[in-house]
């Protein structure tokens, strides 16, 4: 069976290409695919009759008890025959139904075959989860097929409705299967479930869930509304999916489970109520339809209710009749849909008010139409009659209150069926007074064949009732109650026959009074309209979704941060409150100086938060930072203090470089009320952090690993400076990551700044590239107080390079130059470089290391830039920062990987002693190479920052004529008052 499904899958994948290439005729060979399933089923007829059930099992996901288990018992055999046989016939029909040039036929064919394959799996699998899998696949394929004419709004909407409603049921059923599988005594095997049905509340809940699935799929009340909507699909789809195959899935499932669960009270009442309501409402509604397809659709709804009502009973005789009717219904309803398709194609309409005279003029449609309708309304000797007689016979036999109610419903439902059957025949084929005979196109004979075949099969099955009985009695015998029933054409004169006569008579009466019935239906509105209910529900859902989203998704960053902090504070406070932890012994300070510094830090932090001027905030922030430096120093951590001091310095420089392009004041002040709660929240977070910091050390349970560091750093890391050994060796893995962070941050900032001009891949700007017409660097509005002392521009003699301290400042606006600064720079720069190199190499044993060294080079470069502007920077470092960054990371990470090639561990370091002759011996630890990488990355970072936030911003400002404002002192335009900031007039960049 798995092979058959695989064939379907392959054919489905190949079909689009085949049909697009060879056109609609390809449907004929493709019909062999579903046909093969039917043929295979026929070859197994002997086994099935003998009660031998072929089984095939392939394991899929054992952990979830999902297995591809298949078995072909009688019920499965019947369904395979229907699914395969009708599938093949409908595909043959398709070969003529669609216009030659119709679009998307390839896709249609693929989905159609895929559907047939899924259906095949659905009816043969024994594993509930596999069944759900196939079940959902049919839903999805059905959605795509309903939406075949997707440019029509109606088709899209109907498709959506179908998939949502049936998936709703499908998921309920899935839950039911899972409950049945997980509960004690439960199983994921259908046959085991039926053999030993679990009981109890959980089982009842599960059964209700599963029935919801079956009811939605088979379009029972209250989920019936999707099926008439699904008639937006092409007619072959309606015939196959929405009459013969897919909607039968629910019936199949009920029939499958009934032998185990049909005596459960909940089951019986659900089946009785929904089945009855569906049978009656469907029949009643179809009496009023004018569209033949809708008439049949409501008829299908009615019949599905009828079928579920039958196969859901515990009674063997009723079940036997139900099985027979499943087959009969598939044949006659498919035939009728195909006939409507022919009429539609030929007359161009399906409206029974416009059709006239087709009985005479379109014999090819009329004959199967009549035959199939007779089977539907239950006239002898058709299959429908045999089934219905057996039902009446069984129900008149044993008569409890339940059975009597059932009988009444069946009789009334059959009356309605008879009436709408007649209405269909009359509507489709009669010659109506006052309506001209419809103009008919000639249709190819192939279009008529499948309907004929199905209608005649219905007749044939009716003529051989014994064959059906012989087949189905085996499955009916698994039902728990009642006596075996019989299928026969002539059951003798009795109550059943009498009821048939009554049905025919009243049905004819209803048909005769059809005008009256229609008017009555228009006047009386029966209960709520399920379709409208669905739409209201979905509208409310959409509205609720919008409401929820607008409540949670405010788009405000302070709001998001507030939520995060509130959640943190509240949850941590609750946990702290409910725990018994205490604040341990607190030593207030080691030296009074700490207290003083702490006070400064606190004041700095508060003032920072209050500052309205950006520059003020930055400087105050620096105060807190340098305060921390002092704290580190007081604690005896020179390395940390050094590093922190450098970082603070550089951060200050970077901030100020950026501030040149930002408005002097922070933008609009938040409202007073929100200021208060923000301040309160901030204070709370601070209090929480402090409380935790006080609590946690008191709760320490073990010695920190730091006690191991000094010995190991020296013995194994060969260094006395633990901080440096930690950075470049012990935790080199972290450092390697962090320099990657630096690299990315530097290049990221650069790409943003350069994005505006896209001159990124440019060169370094050097003095020699400067042309005489270029604007001055750092122009100023202020008058140059020293201008009188200078010789006039242009009168200067040829440049005397040897006599200038720095070359870059030549490009500066004259009043920006400072000779003292230039001289000092000239003297300091190389000293700083040498010092940096010293720190880099000595870092292993003394304070220093690559990071600090890099920062010092960075400061040296900063000094050059500040003294001489951007050309001076280019002169100082005529290299692109990307190259430094990239090389640095390559070196660090690469150095880490080298030991791997020698069988070592990543980032392992080795001590190498090199004898340098008279210079003495050098102790080289290979982690130095790693440290050099770090150094390069830091230098690259600094260069990048200066180049982008310094030089490039200068350049852009000069190019646009908006030179950087002076931020060191108040510009005459700006207000000195903090409380009245300037309106943000500058751009956001």
């Amino acid at each position: 069976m798995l092979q058959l499904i695989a064939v379907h899958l392959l054919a489905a994948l190949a079909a689009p290409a085949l049909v697009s290439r060879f056109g609609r005729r390809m449907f004929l060979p493709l019909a062999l695919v579903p046909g093969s399933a039917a043929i295979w089923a026929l070859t197994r007829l002997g086994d099935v009759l003998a009660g031998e059930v072929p089984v095939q099992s392939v394991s899929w996901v054992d952990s979830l008890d999902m297995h591809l288990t298949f078995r072909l018992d009688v019920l499965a055999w019947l369904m395979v025959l229907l699914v395969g046989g009708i599938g093949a016939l409908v595909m043959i029909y398709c070969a003529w139904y669609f216009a030659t040039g119709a679009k998307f036929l390839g896709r249609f064919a693929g989905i159609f075959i895929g559907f047939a394959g899924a259906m095949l799996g659905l009816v043969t699998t024994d594993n509930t989860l596999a069944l759900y899998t196939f079940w959902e696949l049919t839903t999805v394929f059905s959605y795509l097929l309903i939406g075949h004419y997707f440019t029509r709004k109606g088709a899209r909407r109907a498709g959506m409705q179908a998939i949502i409603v049936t998936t709703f049921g499908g998921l309920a059923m899935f839950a039911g299967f899972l409950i049945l599988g997980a509960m004690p005594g439960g199983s994921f095997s259908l046959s085991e479930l039926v053999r030993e049905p679990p009981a109890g509340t959980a089982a009842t809940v599960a059964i209700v869930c599963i029935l919801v699935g079956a009811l939605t799929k088979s379009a029972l009340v209250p989920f019936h509304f999707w099926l008439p909507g699904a008639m937006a699909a092409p007619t072959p789809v309606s015939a196959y999916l929405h009459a013969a195959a897919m909607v039968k899935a629910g019936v199949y499932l009920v029939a499958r489970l009934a032998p185990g669960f049909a005596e459960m009270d909940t089951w019986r009442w659900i089946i009785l109520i929904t089945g009855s309501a569906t049978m009656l409402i469907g029949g009643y509604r179809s009496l009023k339809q004018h569209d033949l397809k809708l008439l049949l659709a409501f008829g299908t709804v009615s019949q599905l209710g009828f079928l579920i009502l039958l196969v859901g009973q515990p009674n063997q005789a009723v079940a036997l009749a139900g099985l027979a009717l499943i087959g009969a219904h598939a044949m006659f309803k498919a035939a009728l849909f195909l006939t409507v398709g022919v009429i539609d194609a030929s007359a161009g309409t399906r409206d029974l008010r416009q059709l006239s005279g087709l009985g005479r003029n379109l014999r090819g449609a009329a004959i199967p139409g009549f035959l199939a309708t007779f089977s539907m309304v239950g006239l002898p000797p058709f299959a429908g009659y045999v089934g219905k007689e057996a039902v009446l016979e069984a129900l008149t036999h044993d008569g409890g209150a339940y059975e009597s109610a059932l009988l009444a419903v069946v009789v009334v439902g059959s009356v309605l069926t008879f009436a709408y059957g007649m209405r269909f025949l009359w509507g489709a084929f009669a010659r109506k007074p006052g309506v001209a005979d419809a103009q008919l196109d000639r249709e190819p004979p192939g279009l008529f064949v499948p309907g004929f075949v199905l209608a005649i099969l219905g007749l044939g099955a009716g003529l051989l009732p014994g064959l059906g009985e012989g087949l189905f009695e085996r499955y009916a015998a698994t039902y728990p109650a009642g006596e075996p029933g019989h299928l026969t054409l002539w059951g003798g004169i009795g109550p059943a026959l009498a009821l048939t006569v009554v049905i025919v008579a009243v049905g004819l009466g209803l048909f005769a009074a059809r005008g009256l019935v229609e008017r009555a239906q228009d006047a009386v509105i029966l209960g709520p309209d399920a379709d409208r209910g669905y739409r209201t529900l979905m509208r409310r859902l959409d509205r609720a979704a919008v409401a929820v989203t607008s409540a949670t998704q405010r788009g405000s960053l302070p709001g998001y941060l507030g939520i995060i902090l509130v959640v943190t504070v509240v949850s941590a406070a609750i946990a702290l409150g409910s725990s018994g932890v205490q604040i341990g012994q607190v030593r207030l300070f080691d030296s009074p100086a700490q207290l003083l510094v702490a006070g400064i830090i606190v004041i700095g932090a508060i003032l920072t938060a209050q500052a309205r001027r950006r520059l003020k905030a930055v400087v105050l922030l620096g105060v807190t930072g340098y305060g921390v430096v002092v704290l580190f120093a007081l604690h005896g951590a020179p390395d940390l203090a050094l590093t922190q001091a450098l970082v603070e310095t550089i951060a200050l420089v970077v901030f100020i470089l950026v501030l040149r392009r930002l408005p002097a004041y922070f933008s609009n002040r938040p409202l007073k009320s929100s200021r208060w709660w923000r301040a309160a929240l901030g204070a709370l977070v601070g209090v929480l952090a402090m409380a935790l910091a006080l609590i946690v050390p008191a709760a320490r349970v073990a010695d920190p690993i730091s006690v191991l560091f000094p010995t190991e750093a020296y013995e194994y890391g060969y260094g006395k400076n633990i901080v440096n050994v930690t950075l470049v060796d012990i935790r080199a893995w972290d450092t390697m990551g962090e320099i990657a962070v630096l690299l990315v941050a530097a290049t990221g900032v650069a790409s943003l700044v350069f994005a505006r001009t896209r001159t990124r891949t440019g060169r370094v700007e050097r003095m020699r590239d400067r042309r005489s017409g270029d604007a001055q660097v750092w122009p100023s509005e202020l008058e140059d107080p020293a201008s009188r002392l200078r010789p006039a521009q242009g009168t200067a003699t040829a440049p005397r390079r040897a006599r200038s301290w720095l070359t870059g400042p030549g490009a500066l606006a004259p009043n920006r130059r400072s000779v003292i600064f230039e001289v000092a720079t000239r003297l300091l720069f190389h000293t700083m470089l040498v010092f940096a190199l010293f720190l880099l190499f000595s870092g292993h044993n003394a304070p220093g290391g690559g990071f600090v060294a890099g920062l010092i080079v960075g400061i040296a470069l900063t000094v050059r830039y500040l003294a001489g502007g951007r050309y001076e920077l280019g002169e100082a470092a005529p290299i692109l920062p990307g190259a430094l960054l990239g090389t640095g990371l390559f070196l660090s990470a690469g150095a880490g990987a080298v030991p791997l090639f020698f069988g070592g561990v990543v980032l392992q370091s080795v001590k190498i002693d090199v004898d340098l002759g008279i210079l003495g011996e050098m102790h080289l630890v290979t982690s130095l190479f790693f440290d050099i990488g770090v150094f390069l990355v830091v230098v690259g970072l600094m260069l990048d920052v200066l180049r982008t936030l310094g030089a490039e911003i200068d350049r852009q400002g000069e190019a646009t004529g908006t030179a950087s404002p002076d931020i060191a002192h108040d510009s005459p335009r700006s207000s000195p008052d903090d409380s009245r900031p300037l309106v943000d007039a500058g751009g956001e960049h």
Partner: protein
Amino acid sequence: MTWLVALPVVIPLVAAGLALALAKHSRVQGVISVVALTAVLIVAVALIFVTHTVGPQVVNVGGWAAPVGIAVVTDRLSALMLVVSAVVLLGVLLYSLAQGLADGPKGAPVAIYHPTYLVLAAGVAMAFTSGDLFNLYVGFEILLAASFVLLTLGGTGERIRAGAIYVVVSLLSSLLFLISIALLYGATGTLNLAQLADRIDALDPGLQTVLQIMLLMGFAIKAAIFPLSAWLPDSYPTAPAPVTAVFAGLLTKVGVYAIIRTQTLLFTDGTLDTVLMVAALLTMLVGIAGAVAQEDIKRLLSFTLVSHIGFMIFGISLASDVGLSAAIFYVAHHITVQTALFLVSGLIERRGGTTSLVRLGSLAKVAPALGVVFFVSAMNLAGIPPMSGFLGKAGLLQAGLEDGTPLALVGVAVGLATSLLTLYAVVKAWNKAFWQEAPAPLPEASVPRGMFGPTAVLAAVGVVIALVAGPLYSYTDAAARDLRLQDPYISSVLVDDGRGEGQSADAQGGDS
């Protein structure tokens, strides 16, 4: 085979340095990136086999025995995460390369795209393989820094605004994480995860809960768990399609991974399981409500992303082998499907000129292949069988039923409802983008094959996972069992009387 363990981090970093140094040669950069990520993928696949057959693989970096040094650990969970992330990273890289080729020099990614992307890959790998809490933080920092850059590529106003939200929220989450690390070190004196697992048990239970909350806050923001999730739909959709794809697929899952790791290794008493489960259910519902309300395909997908994080957290909060196994399976599924969908949305934007569902249409006619890829992925996301989303969900629901507590049963119901609403949201998107007539004529554009290929492959992974679901589930079962037993992890890291393998411990022995 322990030498493999460090490679997923080292290879991309070396390549990133090289790519940046060669910034002027964009073609060479492309080759470097592809080679590096392919190598990572191969290593990761090898690691899966090694960890599955031999056990967790540990490297004590530089020979520094844990807990003094950093242990890099790959167990089954890490190895699976590495493989999935490598597949996704490589696929997205190929997609963006093809985009660059298709758009000519102007559309070529800026020179820093490749280095940054490789650094992101290294950060993700570092986080997945870290055996040390601080190192995990470093991993987070790397991928965050890289993501800041990638999110604001090009520097348009919209991206900068979205980036501001993302950067500030991420920094806050990092800050919380860092505070938690300090507190944990303060309380236990170690940051090695294996040693922490030992020492945390000795702490006061109340304090344990506080520490757990602080740690979870940082991770939950990254993983986008309600009510800490609102930043995500506001920031992700504005980035270029490949970037959003990789963010959506991977970055949130790093948070989920961290939660799995800490919940199974450090905080095992289950105090917060109920809270976590409630948060998971709210995440599912609020997230999917957002998706239903969207009119833009990228925002819609961002909300489904948030919603389905809830599924994984639900599985974790069940604190059972089955629940955890299904959650891991779901993570693997969700990384691939969400990435594929965002790549598709990039192609949709290319073909249709917009991602607004109001203005899109007719794509089923003009781009049927794109339709197939979108439909398959969307159905996979909605959990339609037999694809990976269904299998993950089935496992989670089974675990929920097995748990049997009322809250877990509510969780099952919420999970089912979320599936239905996901289906509703994606079908709505399909109806509008693919089926309805486009309100205005679509621009003349085509979908380059080089971009379609990786998208289709990633979409097909969902189907492939379904085919190999049996072995994959037994793998995640074993991974979950190991995680909950703890011992395989702890005993592979601390092999020698509380110390890891490495020579530094010997050095000390010689000294004393």
